[in-house]
């Protein structure tokens, strides 16, 4: 087997992945035409927003190994930036987008530059504390944020010359907006993962000292991962505020942050598809269990436990590792080495 065969194999893998994504996307695009149930769409939209948050968390935790238990704070920052711009300055949904992303990224930069020298559990704890501080601050600053009563904001509006389309309270427009947002974020995080940065992040995650020895500026790159993750959370916050038409501190509590980590771990850390599957699964599960009423949190907890017992790497976790160790790939690598060895001999 030679180099051509290797690329052929890679192409085949790439093609099947593309085909798979295209089929899933097609199903998602046509879904609302067959299912007009407002409640189903509503749940899917929340699942989508959670998926974006988990994709952001995946950049920090999955790629770079920075466990963040305060992702809700960055989510809140995006949502409240839109809410404040809308309520105080009357800015529209679309115009506020850059401000929401930038404010969350700036918060991530500010906070990250202070805390990123901590590692492992300590980092997790500081982010947990940070998340709670942000939530309680939002709750207590009544004059600015409306305190626990929250702020009512306007829904997005698209205007074409004299005609305008209000997104309103129906779920359908948000469904497509969220779908589009997910596609954008998936493309960004996918490109990031295979970029120089992505490879550096994985190196830092695996062994920080070794990565530093290889000439990676670990401090800067960790901060970058943190900023990207928080910017994506801010983006999700913007979407969330526009869709809800209302923001209050309750949506950004510690349980939200914890659930995001749970979604990531359940779906499979470091995997883009896993992040989305985890988010969708953990959003749908309580809804599916709804007929069981008061028993549903019990079953929810039990599913999490059982899942970790039998598949600690998550539903789609370890794909990257598995692919590298697949027998046919191993053979490819051996033959590659042999060819290389012969080349050296000559």
């Amino acid at each position: 087997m030679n180099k051509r065969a290797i690329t052929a194999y890679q192409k085949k893998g790439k093609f099947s992945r593309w085909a798979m994504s295209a089929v899933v996307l097609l199903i998602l695009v046509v879904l609302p035409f067959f299912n007009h149930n407002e409640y189903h769409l509503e749940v899917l939209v929340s699942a989508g927003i959670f998926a974006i948050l988990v994709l952001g968390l995946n950049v920090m935790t999955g790629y770079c190994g920075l466990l963040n238990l305060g992702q809700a704070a960055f989510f809140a920052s995006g949502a409240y930036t839109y809410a404040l711009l809308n309520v105080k300055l009357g800015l529209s949904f679309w115009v506020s987008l850059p401000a929401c992303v930038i404010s969350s990224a700036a918060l991530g930069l500010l906070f990250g530059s202070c805390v990123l020298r901590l590692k492992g559990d300590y980092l997790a704890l500081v982010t947990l504390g940070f998340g709670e501080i942000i939530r309680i601050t939002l709750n207590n600053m009544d004059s600015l944020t409306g305190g626990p009563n929250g702020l009512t904001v306007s829904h997005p509006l698209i205007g074409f010359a004299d005609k305008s389309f209000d997104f309103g309270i129906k779920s359908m427009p948000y469904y497509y907006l969220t779908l589009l947002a997910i596609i954008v974020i998936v493309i960004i995080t996918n490109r990031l993962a295979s970029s120089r940065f992505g490879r550096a992040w994985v190196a830092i995650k695996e062994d920080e000292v070794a990565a530093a020895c290889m000439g990676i500026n670990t401090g800067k790159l960790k901060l970058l991962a943190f900023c990207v993750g928080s910017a994506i959370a801010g983006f999700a916050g913007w979407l969330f505020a526009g869709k809800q038409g209302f923001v209050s501190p309750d949506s950004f509590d510690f349980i939200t942050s914890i659930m995001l980590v749970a979604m990531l771990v359940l779906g499979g850390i470091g995997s883009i598809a896993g992040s989305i599957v985890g988010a969708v699964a953990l959003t749908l599960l309580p809804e599916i269990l709804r007929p069981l009423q008061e028993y549903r949190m019990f079953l929810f907890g039990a599913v999490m436990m059982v899942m970790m017992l039998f598949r600690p790497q998550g539903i789609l976790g370890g794909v990257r590792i598995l692919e590298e160790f697949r027998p046919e790939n191993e053979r490819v690598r051996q033959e590659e080495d042999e060819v290389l060895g012969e080349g050296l001999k000559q």
Partner: protein
Amino acid sequence: MSHLETFLQQLINGLTIGMIYALIALGYTMVYGIIQLINFAHGEIFITGAFLGLAVFAALPSTLHIHSAVTLVLIFGAAMVGCGLLGVVIERIAYRPLRKAPRLACLITAIGVSFILQNVLMLIWGPVDKSFPAFFKHSALTFGTLRVTFMQGFIIITSLVMMIALRFFVTRTMLGKALRAASADMTAARLMGINVDKVISICFLIGSALGGAGGVMYGMYYNTISFHDGYLVGIKAFTAAVLGGIGNVPGAMLGGIALGMLEGLGAGYLSSAWKNVFAFLILVILLLCWPSGILRKSRNE
């Protein structure tokens, strides 16, 4: 009331709640010290203790006087034994199979267990707040304008006794030695013939029993308990454990007391709405400047 007396009063109020935090923090720190797991379910175990105490109180015959020592002993006994066993069972079912799994997997399991416990509490005792009986007549020792209620005195003294007993157990008994050995190096401890699984079970037993006692005290002090109280108090107790240096038993005691006092003073002098921010602000600042806690983890060589 002079400034000094106000200060002392806040300090005493803070000390009382600090003692409760310390008791709960011990559970977090013992478990973390030995298996490096943030046991998220500990907050729920703590509030289960309060509910067990309440259940026993309701089941007691009315001939028993509410203020009698027998009632108190029965309630504390039930809460401690119940919670201790609960802790052991949880460790056995949820954490033991994951001993070799990645750390995050254990964290997720702990969150799952915490959801389950919360749900069970809600199913048994209902979603509304339950009132907890006041065990002491509203009498207090007064020093000038300074008031120390009997309840506060009882909480402070009982917690102190429990902590001293724990300290004695950890430093003076064979089992305590095994516990310290396992937390220093689990593999080496196993090679020395220590049954590490048993030691971990004991760790959960003691930590959860202390948490249960803390739960009863919490109920007595605040007079209402709700099934979701476990989470916030749990997080604060965890902060206390970090404050003292996680994995460090005397540190958790000091951390709890320090956190309670800081919170009491903050709530008294600044604003009670920001009370919870203090705990987290302390957590963040402390971890940034002083990540090993007040007492550095010292190992007996």
